[in-house]
């Protein structure tokens, strides 16, 4: 299923108060039909609250939530075209797997045999063919999650809501389920909305991500934009690793900004690519992989700066180096792929670092 331009969910200035606590502070934005959308943020940022307002488990204090063109103000959870996979999976412990998966079909007028077939199909879809007769409590964590998925998808909702569904799984299982979920989403073509605090998970799985801080959406973009062009220091810091280097703005003419970056020297940047001005003390951000160590007689394609290695962190396939730039106290982290014939360098080694002005993001 391809993502269309059709809007599935629309938020218009959504606010939510718990007593005095302002949990959602004016949420605006749209989620498109058929997209894999993530709500990403640290705990307490309001992402789960926002998800629960879509499901109808939380009322909103003001604003409008539209699902598929309909205002959800007076629509109860059981009448919304959404289904949810809960963080705890919420598998009914007193029922079998098949009874769990078929629970949503209780009010379906179809015959018993048709419903049983639908349950079998749903189980098949999540890779649990033949598990129907098992007791729900006898399942492993991964299997419970699949049951929760099948149970939510059997009603063919317009939107599937996933509340940190992978956080209870171990790392291997989590990575495996990430891929499975992506495949499943493509297969069924339903809009998926995932809540997660794991930025990697959000980047891997989503078509678009809304990064939330303190009840507000800080940035809503596709993963690549989010990673390469974060619109604030806060977003940049939350997603991946970003080096921040203090700068002085020298001059500004049209779209070109001249800056003096500590340890890097003078650089001119395209201001049209830079995030909006917030009045903070100016810094440039650069991702570790946009910096490269130069070996022997390699030449930098654009700019290079000298430095000294302060710390070496070996990851097997990668090595992270912390490097002091150009005789200053500015330290940056850079990552190098470990390939044959390229030795891991030692602390104290003098190195040349190649970088590109276009990879710099100016925050000010």
């Amino acid at each position: 299923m391809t993502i269309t331009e059709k809007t599935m969910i629309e938020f218009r200035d959504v606010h939510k108060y718990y007593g005095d606590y302002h949990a959602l502070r004016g949420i605006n934005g749209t989620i498109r039909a058929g997209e894999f959308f993530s709500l990403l943020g640290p705990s307490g940022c309001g992402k789960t609250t926002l998800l629960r307002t879509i499901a109808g488990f939380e009322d909103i204090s003001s604003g409008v939530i539209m699902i598929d063109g309909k205002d959800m103000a007076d629509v109860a959870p059981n009448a919304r075209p959404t289904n949810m996979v809960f963080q705890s999976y919420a598998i009914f412990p007193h029922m079998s797997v098949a009874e769990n998966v078929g629970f949503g079909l209780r009010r379906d007028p179809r015959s018993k045999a048709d419903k049983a077939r639908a349950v079998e199909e749903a189980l098949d879809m999540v890779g649990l063919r033949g598990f129907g007769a098992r007791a729900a409590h006898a399942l492993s964590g991964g299997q419970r999650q699949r049951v929760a998925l099948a149970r939510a998808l059997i009603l063919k909702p317009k939107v599937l809501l996933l509340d940190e569904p992978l956080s209870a799984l171990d790392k291997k299982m989590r990575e495996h389920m990430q891929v499975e979920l992506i495949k499943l989403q493509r297969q069924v073509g339903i809009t998926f909305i995932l809540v997660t605090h794991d930025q990697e998970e959000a980047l891997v799985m989503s078509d678009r991500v809304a990064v939330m801080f303190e009840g507000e959406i800080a940035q809503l973009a596709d993963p690549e934009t989010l990673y390469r062009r974060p619109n604030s220091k806060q977003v940049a810091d939350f997603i991946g690793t970003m080096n921040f280097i203090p700068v002085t703005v020298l001059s500004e003419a049209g779209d070109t900004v001249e800056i003096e970056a500590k340890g890097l020297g003078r650089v001119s940047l395209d201001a049209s690519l830079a995030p909006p001005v917030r009045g903070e003390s100016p810094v440039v951000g650069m991702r570790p992989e946009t910096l490269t160590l130069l070996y022997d007689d390699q030449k930098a394609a654009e700019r290079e700066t000298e430095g000294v290695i302060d710390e070496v962190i070996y990851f097997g396939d990668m090595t992270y180096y912390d490097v002091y730039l150009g005789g200053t106290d500015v330290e940056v982290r850079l990552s190098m792929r470990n390939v044959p014939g390229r030795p891991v360098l030692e602390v104290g080694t003098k190195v040349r670092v190649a970088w590109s002005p276009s990879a710099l993001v100016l925050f000010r």
Partner: protein
Amino acid sequence: MKKAPFLGGYAILYLLFLYGPIIILPLFAFNDGRIVAFPLNGFTTRWFTEMFADAQLKKALLNSLTIALSSATLATVLGVFAARATVRYRWPGKPAALGLIMVPLVLPEMIVAMALLVVLLSIGIPLSIFTIILGHVLICMPFAVAILTSAFQSLDRSLEEASLDLGETQWSTFRLIVLPLVMPGILSSFLITFTISIDEFIISNFLGSGQPILSVYIFGQFRFPAKVPSMLALGTLLVLFSICMLAIAEYFRRRGIAKTGGKDTGGFL
């Protein structure tokens, strides 16, 4: 681990002291002699025959069963409401209401019974089985609420949300998800309150208006030495009945645990 042999001996003595007297019941219930004293005189079942022939006793038993079943049912149903309300919802005056429900637990029953008697008489409600049931519900409520609150607390809220999410209403969710999962708690509450009611003496005596009630009746019969053996026969049957009830409760508790995959924590409370 350090060995402490005298602890084992102490435990055995303790258990003997607790349960030994109960063995006396069947022993003398089948003893052919009016006087409850050793040595035993031989086997007889006439005390049971005598007991079954006692019309007053039958009436007392029937009254007590009516009272206990009604009180246990009422206290458990009200307990379900109270537990649900305290666990799920926030409302003004909640701590005070809960405190008031729990007060009879620490109030001397004598005082409760006297106060009830005075109030009932002054507002002109005639004493009857119904007034005893009212009193019993009052003293049973703290136990029902305590047991049921813990049952409701162990229920994951997202189970209910999942059911709503899958198209069920509040009421059908309660019936399909909540009730089956708190059923062990409901059974426990019913059994405990039933037991409290059936051997309750003070309120039954104060609010009884001369209706024969089992506990009051047994107490009265003990004044006549000739009646003692048939009361022991009755006691024997009651012990048997209790053991059966416990076994049934334990069976359902274990089955519930096996079905939901919970962890066995021991007692059925």
